């Protein structure tokens, strides 16, 4: 009898200590909410970290190194690259071609992402809240189509649309033999990128608008608010964080997109040479790998700044 009691007491003690241990594991002090333990947690993360190291960190460091040399694709400097310090960076920042490219990129981002995709995407999403379901599905289908078609296909469509001889646009509007891509290269790629990317903003804003409480909209309607006042007083305050997220994401994407190269190849005369295109032409067409790497790194830094600003704003919102 007493043996059993002792047994029971012992096992109870064991259970208790187990509980304490588990409880200890679960405290938020070390942030280990899954109770894995540090070793196992690290083992789970390791493969991902390895992949990131191989495919992201290493190339970035390699780029950093290349940017400090006069490495070229061909010729003597290809086999015997020489260390040139920050010459490449100085060259880039003083080169009018780089500055031109940076300016074009800003214009491109502002025109096609911030204004084009956001505004158009929101406008479509907003209009779709007022139409019948069938109409909505059809419109959404076509907008989405622009987004999911491979860029090689969509650029081909746009080449056909903008073609000088018998292009669809010239035929439709009777604009003779206007060579859109030559005469209006920036405008063309801005419109093109707006067309491609609007779907994302539209979808994001659609779901954001769906979460605006209808009775609040109706309250403002009853108070006599017109469309603009409703936007300002009810809709916008509700979708603010969505606007922010959307702007940052499409800014980054647009900043880095290479697809316009397929339409204008940066030309004519560098007039649509946005940064990714500039880097490509510099490093691979003209062979200045070292110089190209330096510009790439500058671009990475700009990306980082945008991302940091975004994270900062998000964190401020949460606190």
């Amino acid at each position, binding site marked *: 009898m007493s043996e059993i009691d002792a047994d029971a007491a012992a096992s109870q003690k064991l259970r208790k200590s187990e509980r304490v241990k588990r409880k200890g594991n679960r405290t938020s002090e070390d942030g280990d909410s899954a109770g894995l333990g540090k070793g196992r947690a690290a083992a789970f993360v390791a493969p991902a970290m390895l992949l990131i190291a191989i495919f992201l960190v290493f190339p970035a460091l390699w780029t950093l190194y290349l940017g400090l040399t006069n490495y070229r694709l061909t010729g003597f400097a290809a086999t015997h690259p020489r260390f040139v310090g920050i010459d490449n960076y100085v060259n880039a920042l003083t080169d009018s071609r780089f500055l031109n490219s940076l300016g074009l990129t800003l214009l491109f981002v502002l025109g096609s992402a911030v204004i084009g995709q956001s505004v158009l995407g929101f406008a479509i999403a907003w209009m779709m809240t007022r139409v019948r379901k069938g109409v909505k599905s059809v419109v959404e289908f076509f907008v989405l189509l622009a987004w999911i078609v491979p860029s090689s296909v969509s650029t081909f469509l746009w080449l056909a649309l903008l073609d000088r001889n018998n292009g669809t646009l010239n035929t439709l509007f009777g604009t003779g033999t206007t060579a859109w891509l030559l005469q209006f290269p920036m405008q063309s790629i801005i419109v093109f990128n707006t067309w491609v990317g609007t779907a994302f903003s539209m979808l994001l804003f659609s779901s954001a608008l769906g979460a605006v*409480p209808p*009775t*609040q909209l*109706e*309250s*403002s*309607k*009853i*108070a*006599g*608010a*017109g469309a603009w*006042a409703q936007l300002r*007083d*009810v809709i916008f*305050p509700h979708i603010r964080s969505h606007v922010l997220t959307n702007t940052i994401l499409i800014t980054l994407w647009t900043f880095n997109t290479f697809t316009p190269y397929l339409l204008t190849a940066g030309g004519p005369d560098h007039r649509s040479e946005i940064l990714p295109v500039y880097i490509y032409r510099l490093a691979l067409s003209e062979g200045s790998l070292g110089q190209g790497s330096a510009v790439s790194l500058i671009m990475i830094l700009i990306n980082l700044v945008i991302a940091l600003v975004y994270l900062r704003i998000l964190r401020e919102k949460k606190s």
Partner: protein
Amino acid sequence: MASIVTTSLVKEYPGGVRGVNGLSLTVNDGEFFALLGPSGCGKTTLLRTIAGLEKTTSGRINIGDRDVTDLEPGKRKIAMVFQDYALFPHMSVADNISYPLKIQKMRKTDRLEEAEKVGDGLSLQGLMERRPGQLSGGQQQRVALGRAIASRPEVFLFDEPLSNLDARLRLEARTFLKKLQIDLGITTVFVTHDQAEALALADRIAIMKAGTLQQLGSPREVFQRPANIFVASFVGSTPMNLLPATVQDGRVLVSGTSLPLPASAEGLVAEGQSVTWGARPEYLHMSTTETADAFLGGVTISENLGASVLLSISVGESNVRVVVGEDQEPSMGTSVWVKVEPRRSLLFDSDGDRIGK
């Protein structure tokens, strides 16, 4: 101030559901008017159609001498309080209350002053800088009322304004609402599915079923003289006794008991006609001594209602419910007599409509 008149109003939703089906009613100027009915009967639809949030399918709506059928909600001079209050979460209480004035382009200092005044009337002093999320349910409701008052409408429309409050607060808010309406004297239509709320608050009640009007009258009329069996069973906190009966020798035979013909049905029924006899448990009297023109039966269930007791008495095949005072409660199984006042009982015909005025 204005009356509301709807004429053969129909609201059909896409898909063919008729939320409101040919409704004609008049809400008098300054009246506190309740729309009462079970879930899905079209109360909200009617209110939203009056507000202009739903497009009228056919029929007309007049507010005062204006035909508002095709007007935008903002031009109808109405104010609405929603069940969820629909306050703007990013605006302070003061901004919420003065929102209609902002839309009317009143100067900021003027409208905040106005909000202050309205807030004082609703005991919202000291809360004006808070956000709606920092208020209790009852306070939020008063802010919503404040926003409605600030717009100086001709008509208030309330959709179940009390249903988000807990039972105690609801009673308080009910009294508050009634007083407010009397003070302001603004024509008010409010929706409720709680018959007690409607009886307590309204000057007149419209009872609806499946988009149609069943009865329109004062709380007393609706309670004492329901127009049909539907209204009879919907209104009242204890369900009305409704028993099958036949007319016999100028009297009614209910569950084997012969009772005098209800006063209102005299001369309007034929010998042998099948009818439904009805009387509210509150209007029946119990006695432990033999009584003429009364049911005789045993007490089977007794339910305590506080100051009174609801007794179920089995009479033949049926059950008769009667409300008695707390000190009158008989013990279970006792045989009692339940007497009916002819003035307080009713007959309904086979279609369920009340016989007589």
